[in-house]
């Protein structure tokens, strides 16, 4: 390991931003169609980014092997995105444009994303919609037969395309079907229920992976000429989140430990409108769509610990705190700002419900104004879902909501080609840090995962294969690095199986989650972060001393959990470190010790207009913090104000 702080170059193309991607694509080498079948790409993860790139590369003629830890690619977590996907088609003629989508995304991320990559994202977005329609995605339509749009997440134009409340599901199924088409043709070899446990690097290049078969427990070697990581985000570091159980970050952490840099891991979006925690048994929290804030009003009683039935509290004894604090955006203030305001109301003692850790989202006024039928039409499904879980009707009693972890903007570091610092290792979708800076806008996550999968990775990975075609050494699974990798993994499993302590993986995971949410969550301070680092180190020590692992080495959910929690703990530690070192507030990273006179986030462009990229230095050594400077030529960073 070098031990030296580096300035990283993300190879953003020079020259005008509008033509940057075109010029860059032209500079990439091509592979002769007849030679493509001689190159093999391993794709880990089969959501929009992974499944899309696997299908796309197979269509081009490359050999592809795709891996998922689930029993089918159709279950990947892209499926759960509800609201929609953005694209600046400007169909409603409301003055939207690629430039505006680019600007909104960059500004929404509080100028901590990459300018040129973000522009490319906004450019590709239109093609996503075309592609999805061609794949048979049944987007919601107008009576005239054209595609419908809505405004989403506090944006002032209607650029969100949607398929009822299941946009992610429909986009994913489109990608899944394309993938299965290629599997059927023998172009993609599909591996289900297989988990990446180790990345194999030969002479500085990613050349393979070691996986564990989750049914038989067997360890397997897989080799290729490039590896794509598209395993999604890592909100499970918080234990409770809106994410699926598999969104654990273990794959990225395993790559990080093999030398891939982790960028801005502290940037986590805490979504304001999830159902509150109902008991210690809870395994996940359910998201209530942001769309509800279009008509619902958020409030708490003015009196502390007011236990009255909310319907009996008169209007002048209610504090509509978002409307009061952010008069121009009101209940539609961005996610990070809303989450913070809710937490402050609860911390101030004004929280509601049995636990006091919730606020009201009230539709009484909307129902009076628009009528029961209209509200039912708009939100009927969501109201039913709420009733189903909480056993109360939002038509009669205000919903109770509270923020929870939802999306990780940070992830493995990549350059403009989505290539990590390790040659031949590519990262797409939520697994990388690329576009969303310090905060992601609603309906932008499907946009980025789909863009990476369909339009960026197939081009840049092919470029890499072209560039290295003549020179890449021949490597297969007989290479000694694979044997070493197998031993390392076997050693890890044996170590965990042999601890024979008293606490289950979930117990450690919950302990980690609590520290993360309390200290590395919505509001952060130097003191809380230092405490978090100490606590997580302790959890880690106890994990290795007291883990109890039931079951055997075959199909065993406990073993899977233990192996993941081991990495999730290290990732949590890194998130806390990153949050501590970023001595500014930006987007979702809100440091209470860096605020302006109104208590709003105070960005520090002079010292922190950069991406932090962390390099692993061994288990007992502090990681190194490298820097990628962010340069803005097209837009001057401004202060995000939503007052």
């Amino acid at each position, binding site marked *: 390991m070098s031990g030296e702080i580096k300035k990283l170059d993300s190879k953003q193309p020079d020259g005008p931003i509008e033509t940057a991607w075109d010029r860059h694509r032209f500079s990439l080498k091509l592979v002769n169609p007849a030679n493509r079948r001689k190159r093999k790409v391993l794709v880990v993860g089969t959501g929009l980014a992974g499944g*899309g790139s696997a*299908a*796309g590369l197979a*269509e081009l003629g490359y050999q592809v092997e795709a891996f998922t830890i*689930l*029993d*089918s690619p159709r*279950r990947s*977590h892209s499926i*759960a995105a509800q609201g929609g996907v953005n694209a600046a*088609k400007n*169909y409603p003629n409301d003055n939207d444009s690629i430039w505006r989508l680019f600007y909104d995304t960059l500004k929404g991320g509080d100028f901590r994303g990459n300018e040129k990559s973000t522009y490319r994202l906004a450019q590709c977005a239109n*093609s996503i919609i*075309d*592609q*999805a*329609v*061609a*794949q*048979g*995605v*049944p*987007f*919601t*339509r107008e009576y005239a*037969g*054209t*595609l419908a749009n809505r405004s989403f997440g506090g944006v002032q134009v209607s650029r969100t395309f949607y*398929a*009822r409340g*299941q946009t992610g*599901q*429909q986009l994913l199924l489109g990608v899944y*079907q*394309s993938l*299965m088409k290629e*599997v*059927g043709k023998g172009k993609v070899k*599909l591996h*289900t229920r297989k988990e990446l446990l180790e990345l194999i690097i030969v002479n500085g290049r990613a050349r393979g992976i070691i996986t564990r078969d989750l*049914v038989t427990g067997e360890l397997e070697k897989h080799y290729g000429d490039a590896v794509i990581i598209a395993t999604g985000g890592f909100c499970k570091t918080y234990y409770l989140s809106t994410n*699926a159980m598999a969104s654990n970050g273990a794959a990225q952490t395993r790559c990080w430990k093999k030398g891939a840099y982790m960028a801005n891991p502290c940037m986590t979006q805490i979504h304001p409108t999830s159902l509150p925690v109902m*008991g210690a*048994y809870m*395994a*996940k929290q*359910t998201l209530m769509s942001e769309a509800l804030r279009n008509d619902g009003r958020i409030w708490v009683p003015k009196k502390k610990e007011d236990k009255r039935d909310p319907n009996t509290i008169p209007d002048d004894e209610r504090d509509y705190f978002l409307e009061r604090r952010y008069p121009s955006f009101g209940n539609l203030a961005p996610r990070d700002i809303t989450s913070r305001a809710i937490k402050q109301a609860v911390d101030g003692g004004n929280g509601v419900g*049995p636990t006091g850790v919730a606020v009201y989202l009230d539709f009484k006024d909307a129902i009076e104004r628009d009528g029961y039928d209209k509200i039912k039409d708009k939100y009927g499904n969501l109201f039913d879902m709420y009733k*189903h879980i*909480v*056993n109360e009707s939002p038509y009669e009693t205000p919903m109770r909501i509270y923020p929870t972890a939802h999306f990780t903007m940070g992830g493995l570091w990549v350059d403009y080609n989505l290539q990590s610092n390790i040659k031949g290792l590519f990262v797409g979708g939520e697994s990388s840090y690329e576009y969303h800076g310090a905060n992601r806008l609603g309906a932008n996550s499907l946009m980025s995962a789909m863009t990476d999968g369909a339009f960026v990775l197939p081009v840049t990975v092919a470029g890499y294969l072209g560039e290295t075609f003549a020179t890449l050494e021949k490597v297969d699974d007989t290479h000694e690095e694979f044997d070493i990798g197998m031993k390392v993994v076997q050693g890890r499993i044996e170590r965990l199986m042999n601890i024979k302590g008293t606490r*289950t993986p*979930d117990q450690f995971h919950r302990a980690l989650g609590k520290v993360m949410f309390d200290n590395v969550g919505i509001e952060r301070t130097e003191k809380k972060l230092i405490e978090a680092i100490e606590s997580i180190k302790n959890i880690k020590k106890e994990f290795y001393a007291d883990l*109890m692992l*039931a*079951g055997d080495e*075959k*199909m*065993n959910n*406990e073993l899977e959990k233990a192996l993941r929690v081991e990495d999730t703990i290290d990732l949590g530690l890194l998130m806390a470190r990153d949050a501590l070192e970023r001595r500014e507030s930006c987007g979702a990273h809100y440091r209470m010790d860096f605020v302006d006179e109104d208590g709003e986030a105070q960005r520090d462009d002079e010292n922190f207009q950069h991406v932090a990229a962390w390099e692993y230095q061994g288990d007992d050594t502090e990681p190194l913090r490298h820097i990628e400077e962010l340069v803005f030529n097209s837009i001057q960073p401004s202060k995000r104000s939503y007052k």
Partner: protein
Amino acid sequence: MSDEMTLYLQVWRQKDSKSKGGFQNYKVENVSGDMSFLEMLDMLNENLAREGKDPIQYDHDCREGICGACSCMINGEAHGPGKKTTTCEMHMRHFNDGDAIIIEPWRAKAFPVLKDLAVDRSAYDKIIMAGGFIEVKYGNAPEANSMMVGKEVADFAMDNAACIGCGACAAACPNASAMLFTAAKTTQLSLLPQGKVESKKRVQSMIKKMDELGFGNCTNERLCEAACPKGISIISIARMNREYMGTLLKSDY
């Protein structure tokens, strides 16, 4: 919050696909009505793990009814007693203190048990692989609004596209038929102009694959429709049958 319950579970335990399985009895205490069914199983598993016993294997991921991973037969009903719910969305308030609950894996020849409650549903992927797609490549798709699709048609396509591929339809069917699953996909795609072109080939090869994989025939029992967590209607099966008959009767032109 609701009172806590004690429940008596009979759970199917099976070591692997080759072993013979059987029921085991478990008592779970302190079950809150607000818990989801899977959270109740999590709690049981945590207790088992602490006693050093092999926890019960079951599939799950999103825990909000969209990924289609969870799959339990609960008292003989696919996904349990709730209407239009998945196992993960089922709440324990549907049960009473002292209830006995029988929990089994999906039972269908084409879904072999891997362990306990987890089954292999790759047969559904194979049906999709046989033609459940539109043969279009990444790249130059036509401008999205160049093709109009009436709202009613798009909505009906969406009703069918809502399938989560959980397997409840085949599990609920006495013939273990995959007709509802297959029909949902053929209906979605052949309704849309972009999918219509290949509809003949699609319906033939998907049905052929379904038969090959060992799924049974449809004898109009309608249990699939009742079990479907997404409320997909058997009208789609009738539609697929009509489409299929059409491919047998007349030539293309």
